[in-house]
């Protein structure tokens, strides 16, 4: 009967109500704090963060009251979203000066651009004045990407360069040996020898379109091959000999030795494949090293992972350098509290806190502070790769990323605001070439045209 069904509905709604209304109590545990910080700072700050494992660990610690143990009077509201969504939200918020966030995660791509627009608060001066924070401990190469006109506009939470991961067991079985510093030609030989599509793919690289997905490794391959996106007069240079060779190599490698559906594979998907034992070689961000050597994340092959530097060609590496950083909105109305949070999250003590509370380094932020690499505990945990990561980060030079001179900075990106769209469009074109909708030459030509159009519309070309 009609009424009975309505009753059932009402009951359903009634069942939902207590679920919804029982509000969670916010744990606030005050505790004695170290003497050098002003624990009396008060305020409410809204923080937007990207949902990477390291950030999720941070979120859990904040929700467990760890931050409030030191700063009992600061309320932290966290918004955690996947990378694409948080980037969109933060970009809109910051560029319209809406002021929803006091603190947010941001990459080195945006920091100098946003600082130039006056959207970010300079934090270097105050942080340098606090000896307990030890700003000198943070890698110079990382700080360089966060600097605008001498001021430091963000603090790194964790950092990464790029390296080569490979399966030691497969190399051994095939009688191959990966040098510590391979060249791309060697990688190609290995991939050819190990590629066995029924079981394992010779070479895994990101094929998912997006300036931060395929765009990142591809740009470093272009750099290593001696290519560049633009010449010194902002003429598109993707069709120049070295650049085109790099792009052709990247696409053909994926076609020959890559997994099927590689144009769907970003960092996450590729890592899944590697952990499934489907990749013989994988070139990607160093931050994957911790995940794929974790027995829980990679139960079958965690002892079989070998490490080498990012491959070279004309240059010794691709100058990959990335960090996730916390920056403060220039229009924040709780700047003291915001800075307190930024310092806490990027401090040495925070790293210790994560390791202690998790009983391991799995989700601890690394790659941003030298002290981590002199920590005996970490040296033991990361014995196989710590030195490579450290050297790769120190060697990366995003401010002079290419063989020939360029008018831009950035290792795995071109630091102009239009690069987000350009990088997306260009990698989409390459994805079409990967699946064979268009030829590689056509794709390179289209990409070059797109780059020229951006240079003209953006007012870069005279």
């Amino acid at each position, binding site marked *: 009967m009609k009424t009975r069904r*309505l009753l059932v*509905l*009402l009951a359903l*709604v009634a069942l939902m109500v207590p679920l919804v209304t029982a509000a969670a109590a916010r744990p606030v545990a005050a505790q004695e704090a170290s003497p050098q910080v002003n624990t009396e700072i008060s305020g409410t700050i809204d923080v937007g963060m990207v949902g990477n494992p390291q950030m999720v660990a941070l979120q859990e610690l904040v929700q467990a009251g760890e931050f409030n143990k030191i700063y009992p009077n600061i309320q932290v509201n966290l918004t955690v979203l996947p990378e694409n969504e948080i980037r*969109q939200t933060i*970009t*809109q918020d910051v*560029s*319209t000066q809406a002021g929803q966030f006091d603190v947010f995660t941001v990459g080195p791509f*945006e920091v100098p*651009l*946003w600082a130039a*627009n006056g959207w970010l608060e300079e934090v270097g001066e105050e942080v340098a004045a606090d000896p307990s924070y030890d700003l000198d401990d943070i890698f110079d190469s990382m700080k360089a990407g966060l600097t605008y006109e001498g001021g430091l506009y963000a603090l790194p939470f964790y950092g990464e360069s790029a390296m080569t991961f490979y399966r030691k067991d497969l190399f051994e079985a095939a009688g191959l040996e990966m040098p510590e510093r391979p060249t791309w030609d060697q990688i190609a030989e290995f991939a050819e020898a190990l590629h066995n599509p029924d079981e394992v793919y010779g070479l895994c690289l990101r094929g*998912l*379109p*997006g300036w931060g997905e395929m765009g990142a490794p591809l740009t470093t391959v272009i750099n290593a091959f001696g290519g560049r996106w633009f010449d010194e007069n902002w003429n598109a240079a993707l069709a120049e000999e070295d650049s085109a060779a790099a792009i052709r190599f990247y696409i053909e490698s994926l076609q020959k030795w890559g*997994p*099927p*559906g*590689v*144009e*769907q594979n970003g960092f996450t998907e590729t890592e899944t*494949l590697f952990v*499934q034992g*489907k990749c013989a070689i994988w070139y990607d961000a160093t931050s994957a090293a911790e995940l794929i050597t974790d027995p829980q994340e990679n139960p079958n092959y965690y002892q079989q992972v070998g490490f080498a530097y990012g491959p070279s060609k004309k240059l010794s590496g691709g100058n990959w350098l990335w960090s996730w950083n916390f920056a403060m909105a220039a229009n924040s109305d709780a700047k003291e509290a915001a800075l307190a949070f930024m310092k806490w999250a990027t401090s040495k003590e925070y790293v210790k806190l994560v390791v202690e509370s998790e009983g391991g380094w799995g989700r601890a932020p690394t790659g941003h502070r030298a002290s981590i690499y002199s920590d005996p505990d970490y040296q033991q945990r990361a014995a196989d790769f710590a030195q490579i990561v450290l050297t790769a980060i120190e060697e990366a030079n995003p401010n002079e990323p290419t063989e020939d001179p360029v008018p831009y900075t950035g290792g795995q990106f071109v630091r102009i*605001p*239009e690069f*987000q*769209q350009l990088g*997306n*469009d260009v990698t*989409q*074109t390459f*994805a*079409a070439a*990967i*699946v*064979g*909708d*268009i030829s590689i030459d056509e794709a390179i030509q*289209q990409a070059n045209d797109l780059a020229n*159009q951006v240079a003209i*519309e*953006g*007012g870069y070309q005279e």
Partner: protein
Amino acid sequence: MAITETRLEQISHRRARNSVLRWLGNQPIGRVLVLPALIYVIVVTQLPFILTVWYSFQRWNLQRPDRRGFIGLGNYRTILTRDPAFREAIVNTVVFVVAAVILSLLLGLLYAELVNHRFPGRGIVRTLLITPFLIMPVAAALTWKNMMLNPNFGVVNWVLRTTIPGSPSPNWLGHFPEASIIGVLVWRWAPFMMLILLAGMQSISEEVREAARVDGATVWQEFRDITLPHLYRFMQLGGLLGTVFIVQEVDPLYMMTKGGPGNATTTLPYLVFRKAIEGSNIGQAAAVGVIVVILSIIVITLLLRALDRVLKEI
């Protein structure tokens, strides 16, 4: 729930009516009743739209406030003359909408006809058939992309491999992106069509069917001679509503293909998304948005004129 709403509705309606009536005096009652909804929709949708039109005349990349400025029809010129993605997007939009609407109508018709007869478990069958329409588009897209269509670990290719030995494992989203997206759209919208068509079938009087059966009509004859003609206007309604909804579907594109490979699955609304959200290019995004509205209004006017009977009869 509906009961409470009705009561609330009565109360507020009475109040609103009193004041509005005093205000509008001798306005015709129909106009008075339509006015609140009309004003609401105008304010909420047209205000942003006017701003969109204004932005479409500006050079404006969110991240380059220094270069923001009025450039007249510059964005339109760029899009219409120099943007290959735009032309592809027009074709894609037409293909997607036409294919998805027709196929979901046909599949919905099959669903509806199946459950329009009595058989054991008919209620459960209808429940199962309806479910894809209830699934959140984002969840549906992710399930299809990963668990169903993934070339390595997906169920679809596994079924292909095991049932047809030696069959290839197609890379669905790479090599058949249009078909894959249309498939997912049809999977989600066929149940909606089923609901509308089943409603139509249920409104056929039982005597007519009975008479046909007495005359010895087969199921097929009954379907062809009685059901289909009666369903005509319901199919028109389903087609119209389906067009309105499917043309704006962006979630599956965003979650499954990001509009690619290349521009293969970029529709006009998704092109707006790419420009505005991924590219921060507000000026161009606004211009494409305005073009979409103009084109839609032209198309829908023609459609409505063709479907005038829908308005008259339903």
